[in-house]
């Protein structure tokens, strides 16, 4: 894995540092595994329709309840749908919902966290007490409540993930900003008459980024979990979409007949969540503990 990276060493400055960063990340076996699997899933998400031998809802009753075979690696479910194809095609959904939900949470959480913490006083107090009250409720319960009120749709799932995770991201941002905002270089920027935006995003944000990268990866793994859970409970993605949680939910009734239709989506969820976690762990050692 390191050979192709090393051969590009001619590049200068930022590029070199980025490569060195990747190399350090890949020098840890667990992090390398996690990152590779996540990248593989990402590829599957992008190339989904090309990889899936069948359509998501392509039914063939004569082929129903087939156990895994060479032709159908994950078998087929009680309606004769190809489980492998459905898992592959469902990847994109989960990446879209969990990924963009996390991105939205990170974006809003960072901006709010930066502003509120830097300004301090009443602004900080109000923002973070509000966040505390969101955090007081389990994320899943909170998500069910919102989706129950506004109805299950993709957009709503995405927003729910963002709302549930903004407080956590903001707290992480706050923990760094509290330490950095009293640094003398921030005072120096103020003495140069820099604007609030410049101070927040140019002077302070770089110090937040390592913690933010780790937290984003971690949030992503929890978001995958949340999306799957919501699908399973019927509050998220609706049938007949090939959502992993939904697939488990549907296959539950037939677990005696087609256990593979339940186990494969479940295994895929576990694999992805564990891999994202390993990647986050690797990021943490490389970025925050100096590798």
């Amino acid at each position, binding site marked *: 894995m390191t050979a192709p990276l090393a051969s590009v060493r001619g590049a200068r400055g930022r590029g070199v540092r980025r490569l060195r960063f990747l190399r350090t990340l890949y020098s840890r076996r667990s992090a390398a595994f996690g990152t590779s699997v996540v990248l593989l899933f990402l590829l599957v998400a992008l190339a989904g329709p090309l990889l899936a031998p069948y359509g998501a809802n392509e039914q063939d009753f004569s082929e129903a309840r087939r156990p895994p075979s060479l032709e159908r690696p994950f078998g087929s479910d009680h309606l004769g749908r190809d489980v492998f194809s459905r898992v592959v095609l469902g990847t994109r959904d989960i990446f879209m919902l969990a990924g963009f939900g996390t991105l939205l949470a990170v974006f809003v959480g960072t901006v709010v966290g930066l502003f509120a913490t830097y300004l301090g006083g009443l602004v900080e107090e109000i923002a973070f007490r509000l966040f505390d009250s969101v955090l007081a409720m389990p994320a899943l319960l909170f998500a069910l409540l919102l989706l129950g009120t506004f109805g299950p749709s993709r957009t709503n799932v995405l927003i729910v993930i963002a709302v549930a995770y903004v407080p956590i991201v903001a707290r992480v941002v706050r923990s760094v900003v509290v330490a950095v905002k009293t640094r*003398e270089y921030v*005072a120096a920027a103020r003495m140069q008459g820099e604007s609030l935006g410049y101070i927040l995003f140019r002077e302070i944000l770089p110090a937040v980024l390592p913690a933010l990268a780790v937290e984003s990866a971690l949030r992503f793994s929890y978001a995958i979990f949340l999306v799957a859970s919501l699908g399973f409970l019927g509050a998220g993605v609706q049938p007949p979409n090939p959502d992993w949680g939904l697939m488990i939910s549907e296959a539950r009734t037939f677990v005696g007949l087609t256990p593979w239709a339940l186990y494969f989506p479940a295994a895929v969820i576990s694999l992805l969540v564990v891999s994202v976690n390993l990647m986050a762990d690797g990021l943490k050692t490389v970025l925050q503990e100096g590798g």
Partner: protein
Amino acid sequence: MTAAPALKIAGLSVSYGNGSGQRTVLRDIDLTIETGQFYGLVGESGSGKSTLALAAMRYLGADGRITGGSIELGGVNLLAMSDPELRRTWREAVKLVPQDPLASLNPRLRIGQQIAEGFDRRDARSEERVLELLASVGLADGLRVARSFPHQLSGGMQQRVMIAAALAGSPELLILDEPTTNLDVTTEATILDLVRDLVRARDTAVLYVSHSLGVIARLCDRVAVLYAGELVEDAPVSDIYQRPLHPYTRGLLDSVPRLGQNRRDDLLRPIVGQIPQANSLPDGCVFAPRCPVATELTREQRPPLEEVGGSRRVRCHRWREIADGRLNPRQQGTAAAPAEQQPASARDEHVLTVTGLEKRYPLRRSLGDLLAGRSRRQVHAVAGVDLAIGRLRTLGLVGESGSGKSTVARCVIGLTPPSAGEVTLLDVPLARQLSARDRPVLRRLQMVFQNADEALNPYLTVGRSLRRPLARLAGVSPAEIDARLAQLLQAVRLSPDYAERYPHELSGGEKQRIAIARAFAASPDLLLFDESVSGLDVSVQAAVLNLLGQLQQERATAYLFISHDLAVVSYLADDIAVVYLGQLMETAPASVVLQPPFHPYTEALLSALPLLDPQAKQDRIRLDGELPSPVDRPGGCPFHTRCPRFLGDICVSEEPPWRETSEGKRIYCHIPLDELEATQSPATLPAAPWEGPEAND
């Protein structure tokens, strides 16, 4: 038969790390401390002095290894000891007093318990003995201290407790690793007195590690000078300060401002260059790259540690020439300042005037206060300060921690809005809030902070940090900015390629130079320095002080220079103001600041100052008690609770008047000036014995 020495180190080498990352930090150290002897160990950061102190008790971390040599403690080989034996030695024979007492005391145990750990557990009298020990280190209210937790004591009291704990087992060897570095000078003086009087009485040998030559001069019998892991000179204390043989020792002594030395007539001579890293040492003499008298021989061949006249040792090829005066190993002085622009006289036009400056911080009311109907209490950080600085002049503001000196600077610059008072810059009143000041005002007023590590954004290159003020405040066009950036770096004596570097690639002195460059970028009229040289090694500090002097001439800037170090302030400043508990106590032109009359507080500061002369006769004036809390500021004269010249009720009930001498010295005291003058002696001025100021080029 003579008794074995308390500590005998022979041929000691110590390394950190393993394999390719191995760094040898101590090489071939020989050191013998006799029973009852006070041994000073001096060196700058990176010299390996703390490693030596820890190695002497075989207390290196997991990373450090003793790779050669022997250590004998009272004739017993320390390196052959088993772990239980070693632990017993630590408990009984050798004790360490570290730099930071708070980090060494267990926050969850009461002081009494921690001291008692030094006694045998079966000792029934241990409680009594704890109180005896606390009394012996000058903690009169021993019972209260014994029941306290570490955080409830001041830094000075914590360090007294550490000394008491170290003496608990009557050790043969006491190792003190920079025990007073974090303390104020007046507290430091009392601790040094304590160590001297208490330990002298016990026949305990002492290894005193410090970067401060003045502290060592006051306390020790012998001094060993360490440089880059090697012992370069070792001599009785009077010899080292009178007649240093090694060029490095000489360089160190020439780098420290002597009390009364002023840059306008006698420049410091800093040591050029930097201490080498442990993994890239020069082949010959380790000091050769920075040595003013290095030759081919010194660069190629490592000099031996030679005996000189029985009592001293030096590691230099050319010590004979230095000893008989044929060779003067002084560093090249920096070029004389360009045609001196005369500073305006004190009464001329003022760049900055501060009148009646006050800063109060309200405290949160506790529930008890609320129920009792007490009003909100306030911390009085600054209580009415008046200052004025003329063109091209430097005002030095001296005070100990808690004096409010930094708050004054922050109020002037606008980082902290003052509660009352007025600040005018070039006759224009300044807005209290920084955000309310417009760009021309921001340009005129800049500040350099204490902590060089925090002063630069670690994620930005030096170039980016410097371009910003050039573009925004100085209004330099993009076409010219690179040229101006190079000029700016050159002004602080750094090459233009520093623009591409990140702060972590710079040394402490270089970072501070960049911070100075940034402050100068917009050609300000007034620069504030808040302890800006305090964190630097003496040789680096000397170079930065000289740089500040030159930049002031080149750029016609006025300075407000804040420091706790009176010698540094009197070196750089034209006028000096002494502040205590947010109140000015004395203001004086630098020329007369060391002549009586003094304010009693200034007198105490001067007598506490460690001088570069073991023979110096200083009045022994020590301040009793602790600094009062700024919440319950003493009424009348705020200094009355600790004043050695306390008069009586008048000091408590009435604010003192400002009294002015004919030389322009102003003193805030009830005691008439002639009375003060009659009973005070001028501060001792130890001149360098090898040359008077007239021998300066």
